[in-house]
């Protein structure tokens, strides 16, 4: 019979990934929270500041505290996470991933409930850049500016690599800049850097910001650099209330939404389904939602409450 809160009594360790209150992490967290309320498991949250080392340590601790399921990211990589996955399943803990996949472990433990909910990073990066190149009518030899996090651990950097690969395929000249620490934490801090870079390269056609915080801040950057809306094609990752505003104002041209809320919600559902009913792992792609001026009106209110 259908029951409310049918997942009660199940203990889950959930990893929103970033810092508490961070842009992307908070959407994932909201997804987790909704699932927690709907399904009724007992959830412990671990915030990892996007630090693979920290996340690994926390996963170990979660395993040590004897939970029933772990919903976490795969961005620490197969080599690092694999042994812990094995240890978890040995102890009967259901391990599932969101946002970044662990294909080998998934193959091995899918029947025991290992699943994946998310947008593969490299593909998402490649898709966004290709779409941006198409819309901005990018020609071979044109300049693009990619502001990303190639140096970040594991799979996370792959998104930036995907973006760069897509542009290079078109034959564009890519100016790559790693996001510095201060800007990574506070997007405003990057204003002068952006102005300087655009001043040195005034003929940049497309700017890609591979970071939710920076994406939400392109309006500020563009104004500071004296750019009119639409003068440069801005493309970025992750919706946020601020990005919606930038799209409405015309600064932001294209955002790819990975739907992090879904990633949180469904990965928790995945654990519950397996734990209670023995289903095998889900594999769900949440990518592919481009947001631009045409559909931002629908997304904006949801972004304001950090569901999109």
């Amino acid at each position: 019979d259908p029951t409310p809160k049918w997942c009660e009594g199940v203990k889950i360790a959930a990893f929103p990934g970033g810092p508490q209150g961070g842009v992307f992490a908070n959407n994932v967290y909201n997804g987790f929270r909704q699932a927690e309320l709907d399904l009724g498991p007992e959830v412990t949250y671990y915030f990892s500041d996007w630090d693979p080392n920290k996340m690994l340590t926390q996963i170990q601790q979660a395993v040590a505290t004897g939970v029933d399921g772990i919903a976490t990211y795969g961005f620490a990589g197969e080599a690092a996470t694999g042994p812990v996955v094995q240890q978890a399943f040995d102890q009967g803990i259901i391990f599932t991933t969101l946002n970044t996949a662990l294909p080998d472990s998934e193959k091995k433990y899918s029947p025991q409930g290992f699943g994946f909910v998310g947008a593969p990073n490299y593909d998402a990066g490649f898709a966004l850049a290709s779409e941006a190149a198409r819309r901005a009518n990018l020609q071979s030899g044109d300049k693009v500016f990619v502001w990303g996090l190639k140096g970040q651990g594991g799979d996370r950097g792959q998104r930036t690599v995907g973006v760069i690969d897509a542009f290079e395929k078109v034959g564009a000249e890519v100016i790559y800049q790693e996001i510095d620490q201060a800007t990574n934490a506070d997007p405003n801090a990057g204003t002068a850097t952006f102005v300087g870079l655009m001043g040195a390269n005034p003929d940049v056609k497309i700017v890609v910001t591979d970071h939710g915080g920076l994406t939400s801040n392109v309006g500020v950057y563009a104004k500071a650099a004296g750019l009119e809306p639409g003068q440069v094609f801005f493309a970025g990752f992750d919706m946020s209330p601020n990005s919606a505003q930038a799209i409405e104002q015309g600064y932001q041209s294209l955002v790819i939404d990975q739907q992090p809320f879904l990633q949180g919600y469904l990965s928790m559902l995945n654990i519950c389904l397996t734990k209670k009913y023995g289903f095998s792992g889900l594999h769900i792609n949440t990518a592919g939602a481009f947001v631009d001026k045409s559909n931002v009106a629908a997304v904006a209110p949801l972004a304001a409450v950090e569901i999109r």
Partner: protein
Amino acid sequence: MVTETAGAKPANNRVSPPSVLRRHGSQLGIISVGLVMWLSFVIAAPTVFTNVKIYAAFAQTTPQFGIIALALTFVVITGEIDLSFPSIMALGTAAFCIVCAYGGMPWYVGLAVGFGTGALCGLINGLLVAKLAIPSLVITIGTSFLYRGLELVLMNGTGVPLTAEDFPEMHDIFREPVLGFPVQTLWMIIIAVVLWVLLNRTRFGAHVFLVGDNPTSARLMGINVVSVKTRAFMLVGVMAVFAGILTSIYGYYFWPTTGDGFLLNTIASVFLGGTSVFGGTGSVIGTFVASYIIGAINAGIVSAGINAFYTQLAFGFVIVISVVLQIVIERRIRRQSLTGR
């Protein structure tokens, strides 16, 4: 007779008279460093650095941490440090948001509550440090988590949009340029002048130096060390909230993570400005200049065409060279030997 004695003596062991130059050695050091760096940038990226836009960008973003650095200079001169200001930034701005965005109160009430929160946080820091004589470096790591945790609980981890439509006065005061001049830097100048007077022309300021130099001597001469230190921490608290408001209004949005990433820039500005870690010496002007140097380095490097992972390397080089240069110039001006033998 005593006066005669002193007057009658030939002052034959003076090499040259003490100069204004020497007294202001540390400020001149950092100013020279700033000039050298500016010239290098102009040479490396003339198109960027002859355009007013880049200066406008510096003028908008540097005060976001520079204002805290100015106040932090006081705490450092007293021989202490405050690592909790990024959290205070967030907590105070959160208080503002709760009062205004959620509570619907007018903006000035929100500002008052925000600054009050900052002062309270500073008070707690100050009392723990000065009253219980707990090393500030440890305890402010602790209170940093405390304030940040409180803020996250209050905000439940979500941010608040601060658009110009909802807060027109705030945007006028804290964001819109005044006669084309970035208002952020205007604020920074006003605050720097006020703090300069506070440090150099009030008893409180005089005591800040004495307490940082030798707290036992200060106490022996009747200075209330606890009160002086506590007030210095409160000043940082209030200025942190000011900076938090400035930053959030600038980005049209209050992030619960506000303040992350401010720590190193702010601290580096204070110390690059010539304020001593050991307390007892420091200057508002030094911090002011150093803040703009720190605020400009990254953009300067990037516009000079250094890209990708080389920027961090270059950033490190520039900082190290600046610090060394500043020290060398300062000692030259003061005619001290470099190694002190």
